[in-house]
């Protein structure tokens, strides 16, 4: 059953159309990530679902009810903002209770809901503190708690990790994944520009580019069968090598794509010969940048450590089963043979 449906939804600011005829249907309990570069319209799309932006044309349905003209608070949604957007003058408890007070719930029920959400997020010790007395991670939890107390059908996250430092970001990402496990009935929509967050959290990823949906699919589907040059370049880290020229021509394509992890590196023999320009050692992996005559610059992943250093001559062999070919319009081309 679909909880959120977008039917031919468009958005214009003045004469500029920023989203073009978006069609999307989200299942109940699904964790969907909107991902794309800045300005692709992902946040606008989320804000339209939230009701913070008007829908220029098309229809938004939540649980089979048209929501275009329904007040945000009546849509059965809750949102976690990038900057947390806690009320600075209220304690954590008051922050979490504010929405319930507006909904005129009896005060003992408000208390009960806030405390159970706080327990779930392990912030029940912090309920009488004000936001400025909380750390970034704790504020984030209060913001999530405020959303949980509303008991929403749809949970919206607008880049919730981008204000946290790197270590905390990983922890919070895991906690959001755990939260989704605990709330299996709740649909979650998560906006990010970070493809790692998208890959690790999503049941399905929606890749947006310049106001269009490029591709919708599971993380692995996007990784293995990108539907466009854009998706191929966006999903996967480090990004796919794109080669043009004779290599692509030989396959009857405009662009020849191969991921760094799908190339074998050898010192003795291989399809391409090249010279190492640079090595990046991460401990678990080493990325070797190789300049190949007549092919271009290729990034290759070598597992673990390697003693290859710059200016060494090496041979590369791409795995033919993992090659992605694209035509001049950036659309995929079937492999021959």
């Amino acid at each position: 059953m679909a909880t959120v449906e977008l039917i031919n939804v468009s958005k214009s600011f003045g004469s500029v159309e920023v989203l073009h005829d978006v069609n999307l249907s989200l299942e109940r309990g699904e964790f969907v990530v909107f991902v794309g570069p800045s300005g692709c319209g992902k946040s606008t799309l989320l804000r339209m679902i939230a009701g913070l932006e008007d829908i220029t044309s098309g229809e938004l349905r939540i649980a089979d009810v048209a929501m275009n003209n329904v007040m945000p608070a009546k849509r059965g949604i809750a949102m976690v903002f990038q900057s947390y957007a806690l009320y600075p003058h209220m304690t954590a408890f008051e922050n979490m209770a504010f929405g319930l007070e507006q909904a005129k719930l009896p005060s003992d029920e408000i208390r009960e809901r806030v405390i159970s959400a706080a327990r779930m997020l392990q912030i029940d010790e912090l309920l009488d503190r004000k936001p400025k007395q909380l750390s970034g991670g704790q504020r984030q939890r209060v913001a999530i708690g405020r959303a949980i107390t509303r008991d929403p059908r749809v949970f919206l996250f607008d880049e919730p990790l981008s204000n946290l430092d790197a270590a905390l970001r990983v922890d919070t990402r895991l906690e959001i994944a755990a939260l989704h496990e605990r709330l299996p009935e709740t649909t979650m929509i998560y906006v990010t520009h970070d493809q790692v967050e998208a890959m690790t959290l999503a049941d399905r990823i929606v890749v947006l580019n310049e106001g269009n949906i490029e591709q919708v699919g599971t993380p692995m589907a996007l990784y293995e069968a990108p539907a466009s040059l854009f998706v191929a370049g966006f999903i996967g880290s480090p990004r796919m090598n794109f080669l043009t020229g004779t290599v692509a021509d030989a396959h009857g394509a405009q662009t020849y794509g191969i991921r760094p992890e799908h190339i074998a590196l050898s010192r003795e023999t291989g399809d391409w010969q090249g010279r190492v320009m640079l090595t990046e050692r991460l401990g678990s992996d080493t990325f070797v940048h190789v300049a190949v005559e007549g092919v271009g610059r290729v990034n290759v992943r070598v597992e673990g450590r390697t003693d290859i250093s710059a200016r060494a001559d090496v041979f590369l062999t791409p795995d033919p089963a993992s090659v992605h070919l694209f035509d001049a319009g950036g659309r995929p081309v079937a492999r021959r043979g």
Partner: protein
Amino acid sequence: MKRTPLQNVGLYALVIVIVLQAVFPFYYAILTSLEDGQALFEVNYLPEQVNLANYRSMLTEGVFGRQILNSVFVATVVVLISLTLAVTASYALSRIRFRGRGLLLLTILSVSMFPQIAVLSGLFEVIRYFGLFNSLWALVFSYMIFTLPFTVWVLTAFMRNLPVEIEEAAIMDGASSLTIIRRVFLPLMWPAMVTTGLLAFIHAWNEFLFALTFLSTDSQRTVPVAIALISGRSEFEIPWGNIMAASVIVTLPLVMLVLVFQRKIVSGLTAGAVKG
């Protein structure tokens, strides 16, 4: 960087000059108000007698007490109405997109550019027309011409700096516009409101020209005019003692207000109330 002794001396000398320049006139007024009779006309810089006779005569004889109440009433009402209107107006001007917003802001500002004397005669007609002549509401009405543009501008600028996301969070929580202003913005805007309210209060408290023109009887006057019109037993006698006592009396409330709210202003601004 460490200051040399010479720089230190220079710094404090400058501080003393500034403090003296600011405080001496008021100090001299206090000094004068405590003297009476011939002692008034002898120049002295340290108190030689403490005589409260001037204060007693100001507060018990005539209508000065009533005039203080007039001033308090006018200034308080001006501040309350100005802030109420300014908060709601600044919400609209800073957050709601509508055609002609910039023009409206400029118009509001330009209202306060006219010299008082230029609008005086026209305003006099308006006040007569509304039947407000010799009523304190005439002052409330006319003072708002100057306090509103100022409060609206300051509060609009302040509200623009409040993160939009906080407001959006409140919208998601189901709060109406009025609830957002009352429960979310007002507590965050206290520092700005105290500051602008205080300035509006001081303006209304000190205003002279309108108060002189629009009020005609002694019992309706506000203190600046009242003090200016204090006269002695003959036209050749100026009762300096009484004038100084009255001046001190009307200055004290302002000093107290500033002292009381200064803590609030400072604590409000440094608490980082806006940073989520």
